[in-house]
C-alpha cells in the first residue's frame, strides 16, 4: 500500500486545506466561542475608550494647551532652568568652580519641605543658542548622584570620570547633598563644536566629551545654570503600585566664574527660563551673590519629555490598557477549542477524519490564531486611533507617536493576542483538562507581570518581565526610555525592559515550545 501513503506535495496541501476548513467550521459554529472572541475585542475597546483619565491640558482656556517645546531633533523636551548668563560671540571658553549642591523636595507639607538632592539635579555651565525653549545647547555639569556629565541637544548624555563625587544611592537622598569637594568645570566653544571638561584642582583638566551643535549661531548665551527635575518614588500598596513625586529645587554654589580664550565680559544676568510654579519666578529671586560667590536656585529639567509617572502625560500605549483582558479571553478560547474535543470524545472523530494529528493541531492553531489576530487588529486599531482622541478631549496630553510606531503597536498587539491563544492551545492539548489548562495559561501569562509590578524587587521584576510570556507587551512600547531622565519606567506606563520585537520573540518562543510539545505528545498518546 505504499502508493497510498506516498502522497505528493499537492495532496498534502489539499489535505491540510481540508483540515483547516474543518477546524474553521468547528470554531465558527460554536456560538459561545464566537461570542467570547467578540467579547475580548469589546473589552479592549471599552477599557481603551473609558473616560477615566482626566487632565488639564486645554481645559483652562486657550494657552493652557500642553504644547511642550520641541528640540532640534524634533522630540518634545522640557526646558526649564535658572540661567546666569550673558551673550558671547565667536569662540571662547568659560570656567567655573562648583563648591556645593543642595536641594529641597516638596511633599511633607508646604511649610516643611524635605532636604535632599535628586540624583539628576544639575548645576554647571551652559552654552545655548538663545533663551528660547527648545533651542540647541550643550552643558557640562555636576549632578546630584551621577557625577560630572556633558549633555547636549536634550537626548545626548556623556558621563565624566566617576567617583570624584561619590555616587549616591539612586533615589531621593534625604538630607544629603554633594560632599563639599569643589570641582572645576569648563566649556569651550570653537565654531560648531563645544567641549566640556572637568578638573579637581583647576589645573589638570579631563575632557568629558565633545558636542557638535549644528545651527549654533555666532552669538550664543553662555553662563551658569542650575535646575532640578521632579523626583519620583515608587509606592507599593498591596496589589497596587504607584508613584509619588513632586517638584524639587536645587541650589548650586559657584565661584571663580571666568571667561577666556576669546570671550570677555562680566555682564552676567540671572534669568529663569521656563518658569515653574514651585521654583523661583524671576532671575532676581533665584540669585544670591556675595562677592565672587554665586548661588543659583533652579527647578525643572533640560531633557526630553517623557510619558508616565515622572513626566508629562501618557504615550499611546495607555489606550491599550485592556489588552490583558483581551489576552485572557484569547487564552480561554484557545484552551477550550482543544479541550472541548476531549470532553465527550469528539477527538476520536476528529482523528478519524484527519489522521495526521500534528496537522490537526496546526490547523487549530491557524484558526484560533488567525481569528484572534483579525479581531485584535480591529480592536487595537479602533482603540489606538479613537482612544487618543478621547484622552486628548479629556485634557490628557498624549505624546504623539510616528505612524510607523502606531502601526507597530497595533499589529503587534493583534499578534500578541494570536500567539497567546496559540500558547493556550498548546497547553490545552498537553493537559487535556480545560480547567487546568486555562489556569496554567492565565497564571503563566499574568502572574509574573502582576508580581513584577507589585512585590518583587526591581532586578527580579525586570528579569521576570524579560523571560515570561508577558514580555511580548514590549511591542506596545511607544515612547523611548531615557536613562538620563529619572522617571518611573514601569510597564504600567508603557515601558518594558526588552526591545519590541525581542519581547515578541519571547512569547513566540513559549508558544512554539508549547505547540511542539503538544504535537509530540499527541502523536504518542492514545486519542
Amino acid at each position: 500500500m505504499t502508493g497510498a501513503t506516498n502522497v505528493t506535495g499537492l495532496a498534502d496541501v489539499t489535505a491540510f486545506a481540508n483540515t483547516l476548513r474543518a477546524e474553521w467550521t468547528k470554531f465558527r459554529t460554536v456560538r459561545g466561542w464566537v461570542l467570547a472572541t467578540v467579547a475580548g475585542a469589546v473589552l479592549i475597546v471599552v477599557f481603551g475608550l473609558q473616560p477615566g483619565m482626566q487632565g488639564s491640558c486645554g481645559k483652562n482656556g486657550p494657552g493652557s494647551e500642553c504644547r511642550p517645546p520641541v528640540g532640534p531633533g524634533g522630540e518634545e523636551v522640557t526646558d526649564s532652568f535658572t540661567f546666569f548668563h550673558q551673550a558671547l560671540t565667536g569662540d571662547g571658553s568659560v570656567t567655573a568652580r562648583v563648591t556645593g549642591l543642595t536641594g529641597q523636595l516638596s511633599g511633607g507639607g508646604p511649610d516643611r519641605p524635605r532636604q535632599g538632592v535628586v540624583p539628576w539635579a544639575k548645576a554647571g555651565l551652559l552654552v545655548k543658542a538663545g533663551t528660547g525653549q527648545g533651542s540647541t545647547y550643550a552643558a557640562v555639569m555636576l549632578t546630584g548622584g551621577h557625577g560630572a556629565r556633558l549633555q547636549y541637544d536634550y537626548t545626548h548624555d556623556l558621563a565624566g570620570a566617576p567617583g570624584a563625587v561619590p555616587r549616591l544611592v539612586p533615589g531621593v537622598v534625604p538630607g544629603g547633598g554633594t560632599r563639599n569637594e569643589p570641582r572645576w568645570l569648563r566649556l569651550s566653544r570653537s565654531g560648531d563644536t563645544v567641549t566640556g571638561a572637568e578638573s579637581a584642582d583647576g589645573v589638570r583638566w579631563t575632557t568629558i566629551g565633545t558636542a557638535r551643535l549644528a545651527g549654533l549661531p555666532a552669538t550664543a548665551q553662555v553662563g551658569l545654570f542650575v535646575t532640578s527635575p521632579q523626583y519620583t518614588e515608587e509606592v507599593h500598596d498591596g496589589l497596587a503600585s504607584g508613584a509619588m513625586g513632586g517638584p524639587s529645587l536645587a541650589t548650586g554654589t559657584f565661584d571663580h566664574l571666568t571667561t577666556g580664550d576669546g570671550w570677555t565680559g562680566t555682564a552676567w544676568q540671572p534669568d529663569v527660563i521656563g518658569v515653574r510654579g514651585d521654583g523661583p519666578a524671576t532671575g532676581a529671586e533665584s540669585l544670591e551673590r556675595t562677592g565672587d560667590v554665586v548661588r543659583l536656585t533652579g527647578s525643572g529639567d533640560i531633557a526630553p519629555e517623557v510619558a508616565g509617572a515622572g513626566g508629562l502625560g501618557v504615550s499611546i500605549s495607555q489606550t491599550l490598557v485592556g489588552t490583558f483582558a483581551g489576552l485572557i479571553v484569547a487564552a480561554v478560547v484557545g484552551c477550550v477549542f482543544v479541550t472541548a474535543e476531549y470532553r465527550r470524545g469528539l477527538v476520536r472523530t476528529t482523528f478519524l477524519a484527519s489522521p495526521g494529528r500534528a496537522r490537526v493541531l496546526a490547523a487549530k492553531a491557524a484558526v484560533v490564531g488567525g481569528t484572534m489576530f483579525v479581531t485584535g487588529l480591529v480592536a487595537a486599531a479602533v482603540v489606538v486611533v479613537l482612544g487618543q482622541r478621547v484622552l486628548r478631549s479629556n485634557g490628557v496630553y498624549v505624546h504623539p507617536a510616528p505612524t510607523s510606531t502606531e502601526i507597530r503597536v497595533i499589529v503587534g498587539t493583534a499578534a500578541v493576542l494570536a500567539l497567546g491563544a496559540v500558547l493556550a492551545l498548546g497547553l490545552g492539548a498537553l493537559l487535556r483538562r480545560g480547567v487546568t489548562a486555562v489556569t496554567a495559561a492565565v497564571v503563566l501569562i499574568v502572574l509574573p507581570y502582576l508580581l513584577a509590578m507589585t512585590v518583587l524587587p526591581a532586578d527580579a521584576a525586570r528579569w521576570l518581565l524579560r523571560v515570561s510570556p508577558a514580555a511580548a507587551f514590549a511591542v506596545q512600547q511607544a515612547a523611548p526610555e531615557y536613562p538620563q531622565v529619572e522617571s518611573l519606567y514601569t510597564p504600567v506606563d508603557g515601558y518594558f525592559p526588552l526591545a519590541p520585537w525581542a519581547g515578541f520573540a519571547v512569547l513566540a518562543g513559549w508558544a512554539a515550545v508549547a505547540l511542539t510539545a503538544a504535537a509530540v505528545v499527541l502523536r504518542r498518546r492514545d486519542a
Partner: protein
Amino acid sequence: MRTALRAEWTRALRAEWTRALRAEWTRALRAEWTKLRTSPGLPALLAAVVVGTVALSAAVAAASDPSPGTDLPKLSLTGVQLGQAVVAILGVLMMGDEYASGMVAVTLTAVPRRGRVLAAKAAVVAAVVAAAAAVAVAGCVVVGWLLLPADAVAARPAVGSVLYLVLIGLLSLGIATGVRSSAAGVGVLLALLYVLPIIAAAVADPDWQRHLRQIGPASAGLAVQAQANAGDLAIGPWKGLGVLALWAVGALLAGAVLLERRDA
C-alpha cells in the same frame, strides 16, 4: 382545654417540622461532603494550595531585602496570590464538574431544593478551604519568621488571609454555578482576580484607580493583609474583606437564582 390541646399540637408539629428540616440540611451537607471527599483530585488540589502559597512566599521572602518600613507580614503572605488561583479552581470544579458530566441532574433529583444544594456545597467548600488555607498561612508565617527580620508575624493579616481564601472559594462556586462551565468559570475568575488589579494600576487617573481598588475583589480583599501604612490604603483592611464578602455573597445569590429558575 381545647386550646391547650391545640397549642400542644402546634408545638409538636413545629418541633417535628424543624427536626425534619434540620435532618434534610444534614443530609444535603453529608451528601456534598461525601461527594467532595471521594473526588479523586481533592488531595492534590489541597496540597497545591498549601505548596503553592508557601513556595511563593518563601521565594519572595528570600529574594527581597526589605527596607525599613516595608510591610513585612504582607510580604510574607505574598503566596496567597498564587494560592487563590488553586482555591478558585477548587470552587469552580465543585460545581463545574457536575455540569460537565451531567451529574447535576442526579444531584438535583436527589435534593430538589436547589438553594439547599448550593448552600450545602458552599458550606463544604468553605470548611475545606479554611482548613487548607490555615495550613498554608501557617506555613507563610513560619517562612516569614525564618527568612524575614522580626515583626513579620502579625495576627490580623494571617487570620484575614485565611478568610480571604475562603471567600475566594465561595466566589468561585457562585460564578461556576452561574456560568455552568468549568473552563469559562475559571477564566472569569482569574480575570477578576488578576487582570482587574493590572487594569486598575494602568488607569492613570488617581480617582478611578482608587475606585477600582476599592471594588475589585482581589485588591479590596487583600487589604486585610496590610499592617503598616494603613493610611495609604485605598480601603481599610476589614472593609476590604467585607467588599470581597459582598462579591462572594452576590455571586452565590445570583447562582442560586439561576440554578432555581433554569432547567437543569
